[in-house]
């Protein structure tokens, strides 16, 4: 007995004398970098035996860095990744599963969409924050055109949209809605419209594409008609990355559908009164929203004492304290079920609509986000740019995406 306690004491003092260093990686985004720096400071205060090295890379280079560094044994112990990348990262061995009790913690404490971090029954990471979609609108432009409230139904949305659209010959000078198939609109079609029209985008287990259904086609054609029939917008109105957002900030676009992650950028740039509303819907139909998140996962480099330290760090940066700080500092919605029930947050004119949507938001069960995203963007573009019949385009997309799912699940 005595011998054991002496041994424990010795190991402990050894552990204390030799601080364990773990490495955390994320992409570069100023407020996130500063937030993690602060969280590391607090964590190290509470855990003097652990040192956390924080490294960041430009967004474009991030995945490439991860792809090449971990096989070389030099990468992060804890890594931040988009949830849609999880399955491909898991398959290639870049992530290791978290202990059993973490999966129970996710069930108990986190909003339901976080289950998307479970791949084949194992949990591969936990987020600090989650995101949803909402309608951003330019209140000043609304008022100047005699529009009192944001649209609640799609019918109202189309009416407002055409009122705010201005043309000069063949060219638009202002548009009602910032059409962006490669922005958030591919999510809008897949997760929001298909469900609102009564369809299901995928089977329960995520292995079968179901959006090529009558409801799915209705949803898809409804969206493409915004450009083709109602002309309330046009893709690529503003060039550049996220041109739809730039055009909205510049005051040339009346409404956009964007994620809560865009709040900071839009608030900083917009020189008008910004309004945010829950996504329009059929008043009698179901609600739907697309949820997404960045999770912190453990890599195979976190072994032995580093694994313990990494799990402690993971627990800290996903704690309610960290989530509250994250909301304040970065402006992203907390992932905790309890925190999003805060009435003050629900009443917030900007955050409120996003928070309210979290209750009914689904995270698409991507297996290969890059490829699946392209499928839907192309499906929309075939209709908008090449005048392909929506039914045919959607069928092609469903076939193509099914092949991607089949390849992943090995069928």
């Amino acid at each position, binding site marked *: 007995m005595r011998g054991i306690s002496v041994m424990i004491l010795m190991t402990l003092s050894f552990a204390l004398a030799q601080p364990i260093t773990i490495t955390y990686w994320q992409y570069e985004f100023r407020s996130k970098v500063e937030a993690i720096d602060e969280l590391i400071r607090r964590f190290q205060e509470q855990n003097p035996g652990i040192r956390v090295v924080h490294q960041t890379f430009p967004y474009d280079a991030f995945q490439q860095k991860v792809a090449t560094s971990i096989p070389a044994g030099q990468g992060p112990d804890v890594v931040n990744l988009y949830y849609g*990348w999880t399955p491909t990262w898991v398959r290639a061995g870049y992530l290791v599963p978290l202990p059993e009790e973490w999966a129970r913690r996710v069930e108990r404490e986190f909003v339901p969409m976080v289950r998307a971090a479970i791949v084949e029954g194992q949990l591969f990471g936990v987020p600090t924050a989650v995101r949803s979609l909402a309608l951003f609108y330019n209140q000043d432009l609304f008022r100047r055109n005699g529009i009192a409230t944001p649209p609640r139904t799609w019918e109202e949305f189309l009416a407002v949209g055409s009122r705010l659209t201005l043309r000069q010959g063949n060219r638009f000078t202002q548009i009602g809605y910032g059409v962006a198939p490669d922005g958030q609109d591919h999510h809008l079609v897949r997760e929001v419209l298909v469900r609102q029209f009564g369809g299901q985008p995928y089977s329960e287990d995520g292995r079968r594409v179901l959006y090529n259904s009558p409801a799915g086609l209705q949803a898809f054609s409804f969206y493409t008609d915004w450009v083709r029939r109602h002309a309330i917008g046009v893709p690529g109105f503003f060039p550049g990355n996220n041109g739809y957002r730039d055009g909205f900030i510049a005051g040339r676009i009346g409404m956009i559908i964007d994620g809560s992650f865009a709040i900071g950028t839009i608030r900083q740039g917009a020189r008008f009164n910004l309004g945010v509303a829950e996504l329009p819907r059929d008043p009698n139909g179901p609600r739907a929203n697309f949820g997404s998140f960045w999770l912190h996962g453990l890599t195979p480099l976190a072994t032995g004492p580093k694994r313990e330290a990494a799990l402690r760090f993971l627990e800290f940066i996903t704690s309610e304290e960290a989530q509250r700080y994250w909301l304040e500092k970065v402006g992203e919605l907390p992932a905790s079920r309890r925190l999003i029930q805060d009435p003050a947050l629900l009443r917030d004119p900007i955050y409120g609509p996003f928070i309210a949507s979290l209750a009914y938001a689904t995270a698409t069960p991507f297996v290969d986000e890059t490829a699946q995203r392209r499928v839907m963007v*192309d499906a929309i573009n075939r209709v908008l*740019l090449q005048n392909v019949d929506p039914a045919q385009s959607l069928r092609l997309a469903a076939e193509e995406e099914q092949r991607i799912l089949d390849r992943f699940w090995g069928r």
Partner: protein
Amino acid sequence: MQLSLRGREVLWASIFLAIPLAFFLYFRILPAFQALYLSLYDWHVDPSQRRFVGLEHYERLWEDPLMRRALSNTLLYSLLGVPLQIALGLVLALLLQRVPVARDFFRAVYFAPYVTPVVAVAWVWSWMLSPHFGLVNELLVFLGIPPQPFLQSPSQALPTVTWVVVWQNLGFQVVLFLAGLQSIPRQYYEAARIDGAEGWRLFRHITWPLLNPVLVFSVVIGTIGYLQLFTQVVNLNFTDQGGPLNSTLTLALYIYQTAFLRFDLGYAAAITVVLFVLILAITLFQLKFLTRRIEV
């Protein structure tokens, strides 16, 4: 043992050459063979878990519509870009050679795009080509031509990207031709003039044949450049890279997406091997059929 002066020079030269050679072998040649090896496996971080798949990835390439699209786009970029770049470069070089005043100024103007960062170039061009606000369409409308979608059109995007690349490479091409033109001895022209040759015939029988080395170099380097096209394509349509509808997708971009966005490094390695063989074959072909021995 005493080495002769010549022997010592050779020894030193070899030592100095060996260092970059070793570097080149280790960082260039070895990875090329590693790619070949990787292409036979399914990728995994842990080498012991990489599954041997033989030629499966090459079979998959055969049936992959995106691969076919990337390949045909890449060849099309080269077929459009290289001749255009060389023709415009030659015309500009010949004109610049005749400019008597502010020659350096003009050269600097034409060279400037080459040293401008690609990202900045892509940004400016995507605004100039915008269907709704762009200068180019402003001009077209002024001339009574309907505005064009350019980068947003699946049929116009590839030629438009090619044009931006040509515009950017032009300065370098002009400099190459100017150097080539300057190295042609004046006496040949003088002798030809005495024999009564003028204008086109001077160009046809003296300038053109004597520019052959520059031309071959330009074609080979230019083609390799277009076969590896990546940065401009990515930056001209950042949120739908290779789009719209894969109309601007290149092999290099497809490799990048497959390897680093989809973590399918085995399959990406197989595409790399195809690109490597393609470049090698085209380059050897060009060297064989374009090089002319000139006897004067």
